[in-house]
């Protein structure tokens, strides 16, 4: 089973030169995800995790601005499907994450977007899309998007087209 996942793992790296591009990447992810999908985000403070989430929420048909859930831990948005936007920034151990009772969200009827997911990566189901955001410079971010969930692979075709347009215009 493990090997099977590895074989089908897909990965793409995109470079974003502006907030609007990060929004666009998020929008693309948002337009492809369905209830039950989980998007794990990681990257340093100020990398653009909430920015990407804003795009995902817009891609899911909401006009709302996703706001950082650091303080409240979970935000919920009314989009085409419910979006649960979580943040593990303030948590330090697997036990703390476990104590939050996230299962109801993770195995619920909506799309979950989780910031600082690397704090408890082993906690989440294997069927997820993970996005690592690296701060290259003030303006530039490198997004590595990866998934071993074959049902999410159509996202990569759409992301590939964005990648081509970024390279084309850069």
């Amino acid at each position, binding site marked *: 089973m493990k090997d099977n996942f590895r074989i089908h793992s897909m990965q793409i790296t995109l470079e974003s030169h502006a907030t609007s591009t990060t929004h666009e990447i998020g929008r693309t992810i948002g337009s*492809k995800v*369905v*209830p*039950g999908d989980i998007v794990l985000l990681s990257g340093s*403070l*100020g990398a653009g995790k*909430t*920015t990407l989430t*804003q795009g995902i929420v817009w891609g899911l048909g909401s006009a*709302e*601005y996703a*706001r*950082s*859930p*650091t*303080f*409240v*831990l*979970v*935000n*919920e948005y*009314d989009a085409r499907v*419910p979006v*649960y936007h979580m943040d593990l920034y*303030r*948590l*330090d151990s697997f036990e*703390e994450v476990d*104590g*939050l*009772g996230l299962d*109801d*969200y993770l*195995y*619920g*009827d*909506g799309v979950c977007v989780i910031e600082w997911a690397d704090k408890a990566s082993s906690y989440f189901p294997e069927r997820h899309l993970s996005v690592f955001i690296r701060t290259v410079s*003030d303006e530039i971010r490198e997004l590595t998007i990866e998934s071993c969930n074959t*049902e999410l692979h*159509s996202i990569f075709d759409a992301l590939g087209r964005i990648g081509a347009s970024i390279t084309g215009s850069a």
Partner: protein
Amino acid sequence: MEGRAIPTSTSPLLRFRESYGYVAGFRTRSNLVYRLTSAAALNSPAGALAKTRDPQQETSQIPRTRGSRTALAPGTSPEIPSNQLVSQKTKEKNTGIETSCDETAAGLVDQDGRLLANVVASQSELHARFGGVVPEVASRQHLLSIQGVLRRALDESGTEWEDIDAVAVTNGPGLAGALIVGVNVAKGLAASLGVPLVGVNHLAGHVYAAWIAGHGPVTPRMCLIVSGGHTELVLMDEEGRFRMIGETRDDAAGEAFDKVARVLGLRYPGGPEIQRAARDGGRTESLPRAWLRGTHDFSFSGLKTAVIRRARQDGIYPPPPEGPPWENVAALAREFQNSVVDVLVKKTVDASARYGCGEVVLAGGVAATRRSGKPWPAPRTCPLPCLPWRCAQTTAP
């Protein structure tokens, strides 16, 4: 993508709303109309009791949100401003309970709104090591504190349980587990005493608390609610009616303070720490201000990123082994604080001018922040130093 099984379980938040019959919104939404909710909306035995006991209070308000997913109790009926609940009776003592976040609080007021007791048990030390409030820890502590806090509020005001004529409780937004404690205590209290139960929106509570300072309502008034979880401009165009006209698009101001404090090597909570550091800030720094012209919205995420960038350049972050140079930390703290306060003040003043507000209310922890060397325009701190948050009230120019 086709043919994927869609899980059928309802959302935890929805289930929560159904079980407890009140809205515990994790976040508020734009254009949301806040209303104080009353007993019937709480859909509780106590609510039913209240209705049968006092027919005048049978009318109630229900929380309305833009979406359809609001807990509506069966049998809710027309609306009255909630303060009538207070004014219709004489010789009354009302208690209020608040457990929405990390402070357990109980207060007592008489029918004129005079504060008889105000007891607050803060958990901030408990949460300090986590760098923020941990919901599970908060709810457990509320359970431990609530009875003592209530008892003390009664003792301080020389009140007995039987003297209580109505129970008000914060019913959201806030931390779900924390709210449950206060709401259930209030329900139990109201049911056992046979008195009305009034659910109060947390933000409405912030705004209405300004009344305790002793002046009458002025509408329209502009309310800036600015704390760890909120940065919102709320217009109160008539009593009991709130309209959100601006909010943060990313980080709440208080959250930006906490995160920047961590980057600068300061402790939690970030607000007071940054304010302390800012006093030593001599050198001039320059950070952006996000005006978002044409809207009443706020954004602090770009500022946070700009601080991180400067902190890297100035050798503050990541922290060097010998500790970050204090001079740089202080200068950056000062400019960060000025940037946040500049935006908050200007946008609040602009919005109040646009809607012709006669009064501005500041509420929430961040409202206590002063711009270095320059206070809020004509501030007057509420004479309530024991409240968990401080509020300053100003008159719009």
